Protein backbone atom coordinates (compact mmCIF):
# COMPACT_ATOMS: atom_id res chain seq x y z
CA UNK A 1 0.00 0.00 0.00
CA UNK A 2 3.04 2.26 0.29
CA UNK A 3 4.31 1.90 -3.26
CA UNK A 4 2.73 3.86 -6.08
CA UNK A 5 0.78 0.88 -7.43
CA UNK A 6 -0.29 -0.19 -3.94
CA UNK A 7 -1.49 3.31 -3.07
CA UNK A 8 -3.41 3.50 -6.33
CA UNK A 9 -5.09 0.14 -5.75
CA UNK A 10 -5.99 1.15 -2.18
CA UNK A 11 -7.49 4.46 -3.34
CA UNK A 12 -9.56 2.69 -5.99
CA UNK A 13 -10.69 -0.01 -3.53
CA UNK A 14 -11.87 2.67 -1.10
CA UNK A 15 -14.20 3.97 -3.79
CA UNK A 16 -15.73 0.53 -4.38
CA UNK A 17 -19.15 -0.07 -2.76
CA UNK A 18 -18.40 -3.76 -2.14
CA UNK A 19 -15.34 -3.00 -0.01
CA UNK A 20 -16.05 -2.76 3.74
CA UNK A 21 -12.79 -2.48 5.69
CA UNK A 22 -9.32 -2.26 4.18
CA UNK A 23 -5.93 -2.99 5.75
CA UNK A 24 -2.57 -2.45 4.09
CA UNK A 25 1.02 -3.37 4.91
CA UNK A 26 4.17 -1.87 3.38
CA UNK A 27 7.66 -0.65 4.10
CA UNK A 28 6.76 2.88 2.97
CA UNK A 29 3.78 5.00 4.04
CA UNK A 30 0.95 5.46 1.49
CA UNK A 31 1.51 8.06 -1.21
CA UNK A 32 -2.13 9.10 -1.38
CA UNK A 33 -4.70 10.33 1.11
CA UNK A 34 -6.63 7.26 2.16
CA UNK A 35 -9.85 7.72 4.15
CA UNK A 36 -10.98 4.23 5.07
CA UNK A 37 -7.84 2.14 4.94
CA UNK A 38 -5.80 1.17 7.98
CA UNK A 39 -2.06 1.09 7.32
CA UNK A 40 0.73 -0.83 9.05
CA UNK A 41 4.35 0.13 8.45
CA UNK A 42 6.17 -3.21 8.52
CA UNK A 43 9.33 -4.64 6.99
CA UNK A 44 9.06 -7.83 4.90
CA UNK A 45 11.27 -9.57 7.45
CA UNK A 46 8.77 -8.93 10.29
CA UNK A 47 6.85 -12.09 9.52
CA UNK A 48 5.35 -12.55 12.99
CA UNK A 49 3.88 -9.05 12.97
CA UNK A 50 2.57 -9.43 9.40
CA UNK A 51 0.88 -12.72 10.27
CA UNK A 52 -0.57 -11.11 13.36
CA UNK A 53 -2.03 -8.12 11.46
CA UNK A 54 -3.45 -10.25 8.64
CA UNK A 55 -4.98 -12.97 10.81
CA UNK A 56 -6.54 -10.43 13.19
CA UNK A 57 -8.17 -8.66 10.28
CA UNK A 58 -9.32 -11.99 8.74
CA UNK A 59 -9.97 -10.64 5.23
CA UNK A 60 -12.18 -12.06 2.48
CA UNK A 61 -9.71 -11.00 -0.21
CA UNK A 62 -5.92 -10.59 -0.09
CA UNK A 63 -4.08 -8.66 -2.81
CA UNK A 64 -0.33 -9.27 -2.81
CA UNK A 65 1.55 -6.51 -4.62
CA UNK A 66 4.77 -6.89 -2.66
CA UNK A 67 7.12 -7.38 -5.58
CA UNK A 68 10.45 -5.57 -5.76
CA UNK A 69 11.51 -5.27 -9.37
CA UNK A 70 15.34 -5.48 -9.55
CA UNK A 71 16.92 -2.03 -9.89
CA UNK A 72 13.60 -0.26 -9.47
CA UNK A 73 13.75 0.64 -5.80
CA UNK A 74 16.66 -1.57 -4.81
CA UNK A 75 19.38 -3.76 -6.32
CA UNK A 76 18.94 -7.37 -7.34
CA UNK A 77 20.07 -9.04 -4.11
CA UNK A 78 17.79 -6.96 -1.89
CA UNK A 79 14.92 -7.16 -4.36
CA UNK A 80 15.15 -10.94 -4.32
CA UNK A 81 15.34 -11.05 -0.52
CA UNK A 82 12.49 -8.58 0.12
CA UNK A 83 10.20 -10.23 -2.43
CA UNK A 84 10.82 -13.71 -1.03
CA UNK A 85 10.28 -12.55 2.57
CA UNK A 86 7.12 -10.60 1.78
CA UNK A 87 5.64 -13.41 -0.32
CA UNK A 88 6.24 -16.00 2.38
CA UNK A 89 4.78 -13.75 5.08
CA UNK A 90 1.71 -12.46 3.18
CA UNK A 91 0.72 -15.69 1.45
CA UNK A 92 1.46 -17.71 4.56
CA UNK A 93 -0.62 -15.36 6.71
CA UNK A 94 -3.47 -15.38 4.20
CA UNK A 95 -3.65 -19.16 4.43
CA UNK A 96 -4.38 -18.85 8.16
CA UNK A 97 -7.48 -16.69 7.63
CA UNK A 98 -10.71 -18.71 7.85
CA UNK A 99 -12.80 -16.06 6.05
CA UNK A 100 -10.48 -15.87 3.05
CA UNK A 101 -12.21 -16.50 -0.30
CA UNK A 102 -9.74 -15.18 -2.79
CA UNK A 103 -6.17 -14.05 -3.27
CA UNK A 104 -4.85 -11.92 -6.12
CA UNK A 105 -1.10 -11.83 -6.67
CA UNK A 106 1.02 -9.61 -8.84
CA UNK A 107 3.06 -11.36 -11.47
CA UNK A 108 4.47 -10.26 -14.80
CA UNK A 109 4.79 -11.36 -18.41
CA UNK A 110 8.49 -11.93 -17.62
CA UNK A 111 7.40 -15.39 -16.39
CA UNK A 112 7.04 -16.62 -20.00
CA UNK A 113 10.72 -15.99 -20.67
CA UNK A 114 12.25 -15.15 -24.03
CA UNK A 115 14.29 -18.21 -24.86
CA UNK A 116 14.76 -19.12 -28.53
CA UNK A 117 11.59 -20.30 -30.25
CA UNK A 118 9.48 -18.95 -27.37
CA UNK A 119 6.13 -17.63 -28.67
CA UNK A 120 6.30 -13.99 -29.74
CA UNK A 121 3.03 -13.13 -28.03
CA UNK A 122 2.26 -15.79 -25.42
CA UNK A 123 -1.19 -16.13 -23.93
CA UNK A 124 -1.97 -17.47 -20.47
CA UNK A 125 -1.76 -21.10 -21.61
CA UNK A 126 1.90 -20.76 -22.64
CA UNK A 127 4.34 -22.66 -20.40
CA UNK A 128 6.34 -20.68 -17.87
CA UNK A 129 10.06 -20.65 -18.72
CA UNK A 130 11.43 -17.49 -17.09
CA UNK A 131 14.82 -16.52 -18.50
CA UNK A 132 15.56 -13.54 -16.25
CA UNK A 133 16.01 -13.17 -12.51
CA UNK A 134 12.86 -11.05 -12.22
CA UNK A 135 10.89 -13.65 -14.19
CA UNK A 136 12.04 -16.38 -11.83
CA UNK A 137 11.03 -14.26 -8.81
CA UNK A 138 7.55 -13.79 -10.25
CA UNK A 139 7.18 -17.45 -11.20
CA UNK A 140 8.06 -18.32 -7.62
CA UNK A 141 5.33 -16.02 -6.29
CA UNK A 142 2.82 -17.68 -8.63
CA UNK A 143 3.90 -21.13 -7.52
CA UNK A 144 3.58 -20.31 -3.82
CA UNK A 145 0.17 -18.70 -4.31
CA UNK A 146 -1.07 -21.64 -6.38
CA UNK A 147 0.12 -24.17 -3.77
CA UNK A 148 -1.59 -22.29 -0.95
CA UNK A 149 -4.76 -21.87 -3.01
CA UNK A 150 -4.96 -25.62 -3.59
CA UNK A 151 -4.18 -26.41 0.03
CA UNK A 152 -6.79 -24.16 1.63
CA UNK A 153 -9.30 -24.17 -1.24
CA UNK A 154 -9.42 -20.51 -2.25
CA UNK A 155 -9.48 -18.75 -5.62
CA UNK A 156 -6.05 -17.50 -6.70
CA UNK A 157 -5.88 -14.86 -9.42
CA UNK A 158 -2.52 -14.11 -11.00
CA UNK A 159 -2.21 -10.84 -12.85
CA UNK A 160 0.75 -10.99 -15.22
CA UNK A 161 1.53 -7.34 -15.82
CA UNK A 162 3.52 -5.95 -18.71
CA UNK A 163 6.28 -3.58 -17.50
CA UNK A 164 4.43 -0.97 -15.44
CA UNK A 165 5.12 2.67 -16.26
CA UNK A 166 3.59 5.61 -14.46
CA UNK A 167 4.30 9.06 -13.19
CA UNK A 168 5.84 8.01 -9.91
CA UNK A 169 6.41 4.31 -10.51
CA UNK A 170 10.06 3.38 -10.04
CA UNK A 171 10.89 1.39 -13.15
CA UNK A 172 14.32 0.63 -14.61
CA UNK A 173 12.82 0.65 -18.11
CA UNK A 174 11.14 4.02 -17.65
CA UNK A 175 14.27 5.48 -16.10
CA UNK A 176 16.45 4.23 -18.94
CA UNK A 177 14.13 5.51 -21.67
CA UNK A 178 14.15 8.97 -20.10
CA UNK A 179 17.94 9.29 -20.22
CA UNK A 180 19.21 11.81 -22.80
CA UNK A 181 21.21 9.08 -24.54
CA UNK A 182 19.47 5.69 -24.76
CA UNK A 183 21.13 2.46 -25.93
CA UNK A 184 19.18 0.05 -28.14
CA UNK A 185 19.91 -3.22 -29.87
CA UNK A 186 20.65 -2.35 -33.48
CA UNK A 187 20.37 -5.93 -34.77
CA UNK A 188 17.14 -6.79 -33.01
CA UNK A 189 15.25 -3.66 -31.89
CA UNK A 190 12.51 -5.96 -30.69
CA UNK A 191 8.96 -4.80 -29.91
CA UNK A 192 7.55 -4.68 -26.40
CA UNK A 193 4.32 -3.72 -24.67
CA UNK A 194 3.79 -1.92 -21.36
CA UNK A 195 0.90 -1.00 -19.05
CA UNK A 196 0.13 2.26 -17.32
CA UNK A 197 -0.02 2.11 -13.50
CA UNK A 198 -3.64 3.36 -13.37
CA UNK A 199 -4.73 0.59 -15.73
CA UNK A 200 -2.83 -1.99 -13.70
CA UNK A 201 -4.56 -0.78 -10.52
CA UNK A 202 -7.99 -1.08 -12.18
CA UNK A 203 -7.15 -4.65 -13.17
CA UNK A 204 -6.35 -5.54 -9.54
CA UNK A 205 -9.63 -4.06 -8.32
CA UNK A 206 -11.59 -5.97 -10.98
CA UNK A 207 -9.74 -9.21 -10.14
CA UNK A 208 -10.52 -8.81 -6.43
CA UNK A 209 -14.17 -8.03 -7.09
CA UNK A 210 -14.64 -10.99 -9.42
CA UNK A 211 -12.67 -13.41 -7.22
CA UNK A 212 -10.43 -14.25 -10.16
CA UNK A 213 -9.16 -17.82 -10.14
CA UNK A 214 -6.79 -18.00 -13.10
CA UNK A 215 -3.81 -16.19 -14.63
CA UNK A 216 -4.57 -13.15 -16.77
CA UNK A 217 -2.16 -11.03 -18.83
CA UNK A 218 -2.60 -7.29 -18.30
CA UNK A 219 -1.07 -5.60 -21.33
CA UNK A 220 -1.82 -2.33 -23.09
CA UNK A 221 -2.76 -2.81 -26.75
CA UNK A 222 -0.16 -2.15 -29.42
CA UNK A 223 3.60 -2.43 -29.24
CA UNK A 224 6.66 -0.30 -29.76
CA UNK A 225 10.35 -0.91 -30.29
CA UNK A 226 13.09 0.77 -28.29
CA UNK A 227 14.22 2.88 -31.24
CA UNK A 228 10.65 4.02 -31.88
CA UNK A 229 10.28 4.93 -28.19
CA UNK A 230 13.54 6.88 -28.31
CA UNK A 231 12.40 8.76 -31.41
CA UNK A 232 9.06 9.57 -29.79
CA UNK A 233 10.87 10.91 -26.73
CA UNK A 234 13.31 12.93 -28.84
CA UNK A 235 16.24 11.22 -27.16
CA UNK A 236 19.53 10.33 -28.81
CA UNK A 237 19.65 6.66 -29.86
CA UNK A 238 22.86 4.79 -29.15
CA UNK A 239 23.00 1.71 -31.41
CA UNK A 240 24.72 -1.27 -29.82
CA UNK A 241 25.54 -4.61 -31.37
CA UNK A 242 26.82 -6.96 -28.69
CA UNK A 243 29.79 -6.83 -26.35
CA UNK A 244 29.53 -3.10 -25.75
CA UNK A 245 26.21 -3.70 -23.95
CA UNK A 246 28.23 -4.67 -20.89
CA UNK A 247 30.05 -1.32 -20.94
CA UNK A 248 26.83 0.61 -21.65
CA UNK A 249 25.04 -1.13 -18.77
CA UNK A 250 27.84 -0.30 -16.30
CA UNK A 251 28.02 3.28 -17.50
CA UNK A 252 24.27 3.65 -17.25
CA UNK A 253 24.43 2.25 -13.71
CA UNK A 254 26.98 4.90 -12.74
CA UNK A 255 24.76 7.59 -14.24
CA UNK A 256 21.81 6.42 -12.15
CA UNK A 257 19.86 4.20 -14.52
CA UNK A 258 20.94 0.58 -13.98
CA UNK A 259 19.85 -1.89 -16.66
CA UNK A 260 18.83 -5.22 -15.08
CA UNK A 261 18.85 -8.45 -17.10
CA UNK A 262 15.10 -8.45 -17.76
CA UNK A 263 15.35 -5.00 -19.37
CA UNK A 264 18.31 -6.09 -21.51
CA UNK A 265 16.25 -9.14 -22.50
CA UNK A 266 13.32 -6.88 -23.39
CA UNK A 267 15.52 -4.81 -25.67
CA UNK A 268 17.10 -7.82 -27.38
CA UNK A 269 14.25 -10.29 -27.56
CA UNK A 270 11.12 -8.16 -27.07
CA UNK A 271 8.35 -8.58 -24.53
CA UNK A 272 4.83 -9.01 -25.88
CA UNK A 273 1.84 -10.91 -24.52
CA UNK A 274 -1.73 -11.57 -25.53
CA UNK A 275 -3.93 -9.45 -23.27
CA UNK A 276 -7.30 -10.32 -24.78
CA UNK A 277 -8.39 -12.58 -21.91
CA UNK A 278 -8.58 -9.61 -19.52
CA UNK A 279 -11.64 -8.35 -21.37
CA UNK A 280 -13.87 -11.32 -20.57
CA UNK A 281 -12.17 -12.52 -17.36
CA UNK A 282 -12.10 -9.10 -15.70
CA UNK A 283 -14.36 -6.93 -17.86
CA UNK A 284 -11.33 -4.71 -18.20
CA UNK A 285 -9.61 -3.08 -21.11
CA UNK A 286 -6.70 -0.66 -20.71
CA UNK A 287 -7.44 2.99 -21.40
CA UNK A 288 -4.02 3.75 -22.84
CA UNK A 289 -2.23 1.94 -25.67
CA UNK A 290 1.47 1.15 -25.44
CA UNK A 291 2.56 4.11 -27.64
CA UNK A 292 0.35 6.42 -25.52
CA UNK A 293 1.95 5.17 -22.29
CA UNK A 294 5.37 5.86 -23.82
CA UNK A 295 4.23 9.35 -24.86
CA UNK A 296 3.07 9.98 -21.28
CA UNK A 297 6.44 8.76 -20.02
CA UNK A 298 8.14 11.55 -21.91
CA UNK A 299 5.51 14.13 -21.00
CA UNK A 300 6.37 13.99 -17.29
CA UNK A 301 8.46 16.73 -15.80
CA UNK A 302 11.93 15.65 -14.65
CA UNK A 303 11.67 17.84 -11.57
CA UNK A 304 8.34 19.06 -10.22
CA UNK A 305 8.98 22.34 -8.44
CA UNK A 306 6.59 23.22 -5.67
CA UNK A 307 5.86 26.96 -5.53
CA UNK A 308 7.13 29.05 -2.61
CA UNK A 309 5.30 28.24 0.63
CA UNK A 310 2.82 30.84 1.69
CA UNK A 311 3.96 31.63 5.23
CA UNK A 312 0.62 33.07 6.27
CA UNK A 313 -0.94 29.68 5.60
CA UNK A 314 1.98 27.69 6.93
Amino acid at each position, binding site marked *: MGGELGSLVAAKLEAEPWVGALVGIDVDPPRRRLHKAEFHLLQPSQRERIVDVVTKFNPHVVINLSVWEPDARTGLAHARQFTADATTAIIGAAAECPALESMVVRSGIEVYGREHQAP*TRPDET*APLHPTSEYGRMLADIERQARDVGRRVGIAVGKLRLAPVLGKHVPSPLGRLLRQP*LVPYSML*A*DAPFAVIEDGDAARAFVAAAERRLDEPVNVVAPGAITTLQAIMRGKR*VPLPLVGPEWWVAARLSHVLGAPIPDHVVELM*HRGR*LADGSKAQHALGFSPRLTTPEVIDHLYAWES*VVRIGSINEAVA
Partner: protein
Amino acid sequence: MAQLIEFPIKAATRAGNALTEPLRSIWPIHSVDDYGRDPHLIGALAPFARLRWDVTVGGDHHLPARTGALLVCNSRRFSLSSVYAALALSEVTGRPVRFVGRPDIAPVGPFMRRLGGLLANPNEVLGALRHHELVVISAEGTSHPRNAGAVPHELVGSAVVAGVPVFPVATMSSTVGRAARVEVGPQVRPRRKRRGPLAEVELAEQVQHHLQRMLDGFGGVQTGVAPIDWLAEG
Protein backbone atom coordinates in the same frame (compact mmCIF):
# COMPACT_ATOMS: atom_id res chain seq x y z
CA MET B 1 18.09 23.23 3.09
CA ALA B 2 19.18 20.64 0.56
CA GLN B 3 20.26 21.91 -2.79
CA LEU B 4 19.03 20.29 -5.97
CA ILE B 5 21.84 19.53 -8.37
CA GLU B 6 20.38 19.05 -11.80
CA PHE B 7 22.08 17.32 -14.70
CA PRO B 8 21.84 19.62 -17.76
CA ILE B 9 19.17 17.42 -19.36
CA LYS B 10 17.64 20.24 -21.37
CA ALA B 11 20.97 21.13 -22.96
CA ALA B 12 21.73 17.48 -23.66
CA THR B 13 18.26 16.97 -25.14
CA ARG B 14 18.65 20.04 -27.36
CA ALA B 15 21.99 18.74 -28.62
CA GLY B 16 20.46 15.32 -29.20
CA ASN B 17 17.54 16.80 -31.07
CA ALA B 18 19.85 18.71 -33.38
CA LEU B 19 21.74 15.49 -34.10
CA THR B 20 18.72 13.26 -34.67
CA GLU B 21 16.34 15.69 -36.35
CA PRO B 22 17.44 14.67 -39.89
CA LEU B 23 16.87 11.01 -38.98
CA ARG B 24 13.40 11.80 -37.63
CA SER B 25 12.37 13.53 -40.84
CA ILE B 26 13.31 10.40 -42.81
CA TRP B 27 11.84 7.99 -40.31
CA PRO B 28 8.72 9.48 -38.73
CA ILE B 29 7.37 8.51 -35.31
CA HIS B 30 5.26 5.41 -35.52
CA SER B 31 4.86 2.09 -33.80
CA VAL B 32 4.53 -1.59 -34.64
CA ASP B 33 1.41 -3.71 -34.24
CA ASP B 34 0.66 -6.30 -31.57
CA TYR B 35 2.94 -8.87 -33.23
CA GLY B 36 5.75 -6.50 -34.13
CA ARG B 37 4.75 -5.99 -37.79
CA ASP B 38 5.75 -2.60 -39.07
CA PRO B 39 3.46 -1.30 -41.85
CA HIS B 40 5.70 1.73 -42.34
CA LEU B 41 8.76 -0.42 -43.00
CA ILE B 42 6.74 -2.65 -45.35
CA GLY B 43 5.59 0.44 -47.24
CA ALA B 44 9.18 1.66 -47.49
CA LEU B 45 10.42 -1.72 -48.78
CA ALA B 46 7.55 -2.26 -51.22
CA PRO B 47 9.37 -0.70 -54.21
CA PHE B 48 12.33 -3.03 -53.61
CA ALA B 49 10.01 -6.03 -53.36
CA ARG B 50 8.45 -5.00 -56.67
CA LEU B 51 11.89 -5.01 -58.24
CA ARG B 52 12.06 -8.72 -57.50
CA TRP B 53 8.43 -9.84 -57.85
CA ASP B 54 5.66 -8.56 -60.06
CA VAL B 55 2.83 -10.43 -58.40
CA THR B 56 -0.59 -11.07 -59.94
CA VAL B 57 -3.18 -11.96 -57.31
CA GLY B 58 -6.38 -13.86 -57.99
CA GLY B 59 -9.15 -15.42 -55.93
CA ASP B 60 -8.77 -12.97 -53.05
CA HIS B 61 -12.59 -12.67 -52.90
CA HIS B 62 -12.56 -16.09 -51.19
CA LEU B 63 -10.87 -14.63 -48.13
CA PRO B 64 -12.94 -13.46 -45.15
CA ALA B 65 -13.19 -9.70 -44.70
CA ARG B 66 -12.71 -9.59 -40.94
CA THR B 67 -12.22 -13.02 -39.38
CA GLY B 68 -9.03 -15.05 -39.24
CA ALA B 69 -8.00 -17.68 -41.76
CA LEU B 70 -5.13 -20.04 -42.43
CA LEU B 71 -3.68 -19.83 -45.92
CA VAL B 72 -1.50 -22.69 -47.12
CA CYS B 73 0.81 -22.05 -50.05
CA ASN B 74 3.09 -24.36 -52.00
CA SER B 75 6.78 -23.60 -51.92
CA ARG B 76 9.59 -24.08 -54.35
CA ARG B 77 12.85 -24.20 -52.42
CA PHE B 78 14.38 -20.76 -51.75
CA SER B 79 11.52 -19.01 -53.54
CA LEU B 80 10.25 -17.14 -50.41
CA SER B 81 6.75 -17.86 -51.67
CA SER B 82 5.08 -17.30 -48.29
CA VAL B 83 6.77 -13.89 -48.01
CA TYR B 84 5.73 -12.51 -51.38
CA ALA B 85 2.29 -14.13 -51.09
CA ALA B 86 1.74 -12.46 -47.70
CA LEU B 87 2.93 -9.07 -48.95
CA ALA B 88 0.82 -9.27 -52.11
CA LEU B 89 -2.31 -10.46 -50.32
CA SER B 90 -1.86 -7.78 -47.69
CA GLU B 91 -1.78 -5.13 -50.39
CA VAL B 92 -4.86 -6.53 -52.15
CA THR B 93 -7.01 -7.17 -49.07
CA GLY B 94 -5.91 -4.12 -47.08
CA ARG B 95 -5.41 -6.35 -44.03
CA PRO B 96 -2.14 -7.38 -42.42
CA VAL B 97 -1.22 -10.86 -43.63
CA ARG B 98 1.40 -12.71 -41.62
CA PHE B 99 3.68 -15.47 -42.80
CA VAL B 100 5.03 -18.35 -40.78
CA GLY B 101 8.63 -19.52 -40.71
CA ARG B 102 10.81 -16.65 -39.59
CA PRO B 103 14.05 -17.72 -37.89
CA ASP B 104 14.54 -16.73 -34.26
CA ILE B 105 18.01 -15.32 -34.58
CA ALA B 106 19.18 -11.72 -35.09
CA PRO B 107 19.30 -9.87 -37.38
CA VAL B 108 17.19 -11.91 -39.87
CA GLY B 109 14.53 -12.99 -37.37
CA PRO B 110 13.72 -9.51 -36.02
CA PHE B 111 13.78 -8.09 -39.55
CA MET B 112 11.29 -10.69 -40.76
CA ARG B 113 9.14 -10.07 -37.70
CA ARG B 114 8.87 -6.44 -38.82
CA LEU B 115 7.63 -7.72 -42.19
CA GLY B 116 4.95 -9.82 -40.47
CA GLY B 117 6.84 -13.06 -39.81
CA LEU B 118 5.78 -15.53 -37.14
CA LEU B 119 7.65 -18.49 -35.71
CA ALA B 120 6.73 -21.93 -37.07
CA ASN B 121 5.21 -22.83 -33.75
CA PRO B 122 1.60 -24.13 -33.49
CA ASN B 123 0.94 -21.98 -30.39
CA GLU B 124 2.15 -18.86 -32.17
CA VAL B 125 -0.10 -19.61 -35.17
CA LEU B 126 -3.04 -20.44 -32.89
CA GLY B 127 -2.67 -17.12 -31.05
CA ALA B 128 -2.67 -15.16 -34.30
CA LEU B 129 -5.68 -17.05 -35.71
CA ARG B 130 -7.64 -16.48 -32.52
CA HIS B 131 -6.89 -12.81 -33.02
CA HIS B 132 -8.62 -12.88 -36.41
CA GLU B 133 -5.40 -12.62 -38.36
CA LEU B 134 -4.72 -13.94 -41.84
CA VAL B 135 -1.75 -16.30 -41.59
CA VAL B 136 0.17 -17.86 -44.50
CA ILE B 137 2.03 -21.11 -43.95
CA SER B 138 4.11 -23.02 -46.48
CA ALA B 139 3.85 -26.62 -47.53
CA GLU B 140 7.17 -28.48 -47.52
CA GLY B 141 9.56 -27.10 -50.12
CA THR B 142 9.93 -28.99 -53.40
CA SER B 143 12.41 -28.72 -56.21
CA HIS B 144 9.71 -28.63 -58.90
CA PRO B 145 7.61 -25.46 -59.02
CA ARG B 146 4.41 -27.33 -59.83
CA ASN B 147 4.62 -29.92 -57.07
CA ALA B 148 2.87 -29.28 -53.78
CA GLY B 149 4.79 -30.69 -50.83
CA ALA B 150 3.31 -32.15 -47.68
CA VAL B 151 1.36 -29.66 -45.59
CA PRO B 152 2.48 -29.51 -41.92
CA HIS B 153 -0.54 -30.88 -40.07
CA GLU B 154 0.66 -29.45 -36.72
CA LEU B 155 0.13 -25.94 -38.06
CA VAL B 156 -3.17 -26.88 -39.74
CA GLY B 157 -4.18 -28.17 -36.29
CA SER B 158 -4.02 -24.58 -35.02
CA ALA B 159 -6.74 -23.65 -37.52
CA VAL B 160 -8.85 -26.63 -36.44
CA VAL B 161 -8.53 -25.63 -32.77
CA ALA B 162 -9.21 -21.96 -33.52
CA GLY B 163 -12.17 -22.91 -35.74
CA VAL B 164 -11.07 -20.80 -38.69
CA PRO B 165 -11.28 -21.69 -42.40
CA VAL B 166 -8.30 -23.02 -44.37
CA PHE B 167 -7.59 -21.85 -47.93
CA PRO B 168 -5.09 -23.22 -50.44
CA VAL B 169 -2.92 -20.58 -52.08
CA ALA B 170 -1.11 -21.66 -55.22
CA THR B 171 2.03 -19.66 -55.91
CA MET B 172 4.26 -19.63 -58.94
CA SER B 173 7.37 -17.58 -59.46
CA SER B 174 10.41 -17.69 -61.62
CA THR B 175 14.00 -17.94 -60.48
CA VAL B 176 15.11 -15.51 -63.18
CA GLY B 177 12.11 -13.34 -64.06
CA ARG B 178 9.93 -11.02 -62.01
CA ALA B 179 6.58 -12.56 -62.89
CA ALA B 180 4.86 -14.25 -59.96
CA ARG B 181 1.34 -15.43 -59.39
CA VAL B 182 -0.70 -15.95 -56.23
CA GLU B 183 -4.07 -17.66 -56.58
CA VAL B 184 -6.33 -18.19 -53.58
CA GLY B 185 -8.60 -21.21 -53.88
CA PRO B 186 -11.98 -21.75 -52.22
CA GLN B 187 -12.09 -22.87 -48.59
CA VAL B 188 -11.15 -26.49 -48.01
CA ARG B 189 -13.83 -28.18 -45.93
CA PRO B 190 -13.07 -31.43 -44.14
CA ARG B 191 -14.85 -34.42 -45.65
CA ARG B 192 -15.59 -35.98 -42.30
CA LYS B 193 -16.10 -34.56 -38.86
CA ARG B 194 -13.42 -35.81 -36.52
CA ARG B 195 -13.06 -35.14 -32.83
CA GLY B 196 -9.39 -36.06 -32.50
CA PRO B 197 -6.09 -35.30 -34.22
CA LEU B 198 -7.19 -37.08 -37.40
CA ALA B 199 -9.12 -33.89 -38.24
CA GLU B 200 -5.93 -31.94 -38.87
CA VAL B 201 -4.07 -34.78 -40.58
CA GLU B 202 -6.92 -35.33 -43.05
CA LEU B 203 -7.44 -31.63 -43.59
CA ALA B 204 -3.72 -31.14 -44.31
CA GLU B 205 -3.85 -33.93 -46.92
CA GLN B 206 -6.94 -32.41 -48.51
CA VAL B 207 -5.25 -29.01 -48.72
CA GLN B 208 -2.24 -30.60 -50.41
CA HIS B 209 -4.53 -32.22 -53.01
CA HIS B 210 -6.30 -28.91 -53.63
CA LEU B 211 -2.98 -27.16 -54.03
CA GLN B 212 -1.76 -29.78 -56.49
CA ARG B 213 -4.95 -29.40 -58.56
CA MET B 214 -4.55 -25.63 -58.65
CA LEU B 215 -0.87 -25.91 -59.65
CA ASP B 216 -1.76 -28.37 -62.42
CA GLY B 217 -4.22 -25.77 -63.69
CA PHE B 218 -1.51 -23.13 -63.81
CA GLY B 219 0.22 -24.74 -66.77
CA GLY B 220 3.96 -24.88 -67.25
CA VAL B 221 6.86 -22.96 -65.84
CA GLN B 222 6.75 -19.29 -66.71
CA THR B 223 10.25 -17.91 -66.93
CA GLY B 224 9.41 -15.54 -69.74
CA VAL B 225 11.84 -17.40 -72.01
CA ALA B 226 9.88 -19.97 -74.05
CA PRO B 227 12.67 -22.51 -74.74
CA ILE B 228 13.54 -22.69 -71.06
CA ASP B 229 9.88 -23.19 -70.17
CA TRP B 230 9.64 -25.95 -72.74
CA LEU B 231 12.78 -27.68 -71.43
CA ALA B 232 11.63 -27.38 -67.83
CA GLU B 233 8.41 -29.20 -68.71
CA GLY B 234 10.44 -32.22 -69.70
